[in-house]
């Protein structure tokens, strides 16, 4: 068994097209790693939401800023890091859109969907100070390391 996970890194410009592109890469990595169609959709949507967050709120639609996606394939799970070059944010500051006072609001649904569709979800501050979304999906069978 390899001691280090297989890593796939993708760096995207802050463009609206990068959101769908990242989603498609996420679905492809998930499919190749052996996740079923339902999990592929959930992983793709989680990547879509993380990159959309980086595009809108982190990098504030400034094309020259980069969005980095790192896929790490462990035997038991797929870990995904999405890092932007913005000012970062605290997960505790994101409103819960399920609360009565927020349900008709505009914020918090992206984080809620990532949390709901992945087995692990957190938001860290990257070394450069931007937001780093870290999320993981466990696999029901060992993930192929030959992706």
């Amino acid at each position, binding site marked *: 068994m390899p001691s280090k996970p297989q890593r796939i890194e993708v760096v995207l410009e802050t463009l609206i097209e990068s959101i769908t592109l990242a989603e498609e890469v996420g679905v492809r990595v998930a499919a190749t790693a052996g996740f079923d169609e339902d999990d592929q959709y959930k992983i793709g949507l989680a990547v*879509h939401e993380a990159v959309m967050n980086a595009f*809108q709120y982190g990098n504030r639609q400034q094309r020259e800023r980069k969005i980095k996606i790192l896929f790490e394939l462990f035997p038991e799970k797929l870990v995904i890091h999405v890092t932007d070059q913005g000012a970062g944010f605290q997960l505790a500051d994101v409103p819960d*859109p399920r609360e009565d006072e927020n349900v*008709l609001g505009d914020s918090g*649904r*992206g984080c809620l969907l990532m949390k709901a569709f992945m087995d692990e979800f957190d938001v860290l501050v990257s070394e450069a100070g931007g937001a780093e979304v870290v999320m993981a999906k466990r696999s029901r069978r060992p993930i192929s390391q030959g992706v």
Partner: protein
Amino acid sequence: MSFKAVSREVGGVTVIDMDGRITLGEGSDLLRDLISEKLGAGQKKIVMNLAGITYIDSTGLGELVAGYRHVKSQGGEIKLMNLNKKVSDLLQITKLYAVFDIHNDEAQAVASFQF
């Protein structure tokens, strides 16, 4: 598949048949404009037929909510119809299922408006 929407009138209710994806840059702007256009034309009873919608992200959900608020503020209502499992799951997770009046049958959706 990109977003498409076609509207028609059924018994005094505007039914909007939608296809494709409602995401940031792929439908959310068009949806907002369409709702504003309908309100501008005095059409405040709206059923959104989501049968052809294959994908919605959080921006798309936010646009449905914004449309709901906008129409409600004008004394009307938006109802949803024909949600597939993926869309239905998203509305359950976000608790929007409790906000919208949701139907699986067009005649029932149209008749549910109080005239």
